[in-house]
């Protein structure tokens, strides 16, 4: 993906002020951000959705975001931070990222949503739709016993005078 800005920074880290980098994850200070100290954390590998990367990488991304948030909080003497991940518009295959935004009392930023009240029917419908799929998250496939046919000895039938299977073969018509 040549046109992706974040992939460009991964290839050439001098393009942006990097504040954290390891083999899988990078964090930069935004030169055009909501406020000074706005950090963007992203995976080096181009991915669009958080559920499409490994659980391990998802956890690591949020660990870096959490640490960045704590460091900003202490270094800048903040009143709080927001950690926001947004994946939007599945058609443009944008590179996923997590923003860490320094917040101060009465900073005039509006990152809160308008609380809605949905009809009970809609809430129940949403609950059912999510719940029906969500139980799979913790599903662990039961271990199936694999039978190795090469090792397992099949019972060998010996000619036995008392065995009726053989007896009937020898029966005279």
């Amino acid at each position, binding site marked *: 993906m040549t046109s992706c800005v974040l992939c460009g920074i991964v290839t050439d*880290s001098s393009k942006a*002020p*990097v*504040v*954290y*980098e*390891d*083999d*899988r*994850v990078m*964090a930069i*200070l935004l*030169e*055009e*951000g*909501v*406020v*000074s*100290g706005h950090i963007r954390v992203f995976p080096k590998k181009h991915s669009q959705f*958080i*559920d499409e*990367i490994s*659980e391990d990488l998802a*956890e690591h991304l949020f*660990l870096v975001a*959490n*640490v*960045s*948030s*704590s*460091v*900003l*909080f202490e*270094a800048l003497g903040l*009143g*709080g931070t*927001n*950690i*926001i991940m*947004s*994946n939007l518009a599945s058609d443009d295959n944008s590179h996923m990222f*997590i923003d860490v935004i320094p*917040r101060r*009392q009465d900073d005039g*930023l509006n*990152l809160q*949503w*308008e*609380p*809605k*009240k949905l009809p009970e029917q809609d809430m129940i419908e*949403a609950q059912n*739709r*999510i*719940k029906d*799929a*969500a*139980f*799979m*998250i913790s599903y662990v496939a039961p271990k199936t016993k694999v039978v190795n046919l090469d090792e397992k000895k099949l019972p060998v039938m010996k000619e036995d005078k008392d065995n009726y299977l053989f007896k009937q073969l020898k029966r005279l018509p």
Partner: protein
Amino acid sequence: MADPTPEEQEEMIKQQCPFCRINRKEIPSKDVYADDKIMAVLDINPAAKGHTVVFPKDHHMLLPQIPYETFSHMFRKTAKLCGVVRKAMLAQGMSIFIASGGAAGQQAYHFTMHLIPRDKGDGLFQSGIKKITPEEIMKLKAPLMQHITARVVQAYKQAGKQPPNVKQQANQEEQLMNLLNANPQIRDLIIQDPEKFKSILPQNPQLAQLFDGMNLEELANFLKKKTAGDQR
């Protein structure tokens, strides 16, 4: 009556905390997922249909207070849950929103994380973007990098896990060499008169940052040898 001990206070908070009460089923909720460590319910005042709130069952107020084991579990499951909500609600995208501190809009004394189905043009999380001055960036970059890197490594070590392979030192040195190669006059000044260079450092915060804690005599000797080697 004697003042309550910190333990008693915590117990009182847990008794009243709405999310602890949801966990104890004292408050009805539209639960969508639960396991031994975390729980997810629908937000009663959603930003969009399917807006889900994820929280640890144990009472923790802020993200940094959550023990590593729960933290790890929570984000692994949340990543998957995010995909589940997106697909179940046929949303174009998803947002994960965390507010820490009152100034950031944290309303509950229990850590919560919002999973919000997104659609193009829903107008959520749009805040004006402004240009940050290069001086601001320079001032923040080095100290942030140093602390973030150290704390990420520390977090993994405390959890008894192998820390990631971080890049820091190389970058700083690289940056310095790039600067010296691009500005031969600075290099010459360091070689000829390190003392004078030291005296002009405070006038330039960008340079002061880069040369912070550096032994200039050593650097001058190193550069002398290097330029001599280059000329040969």
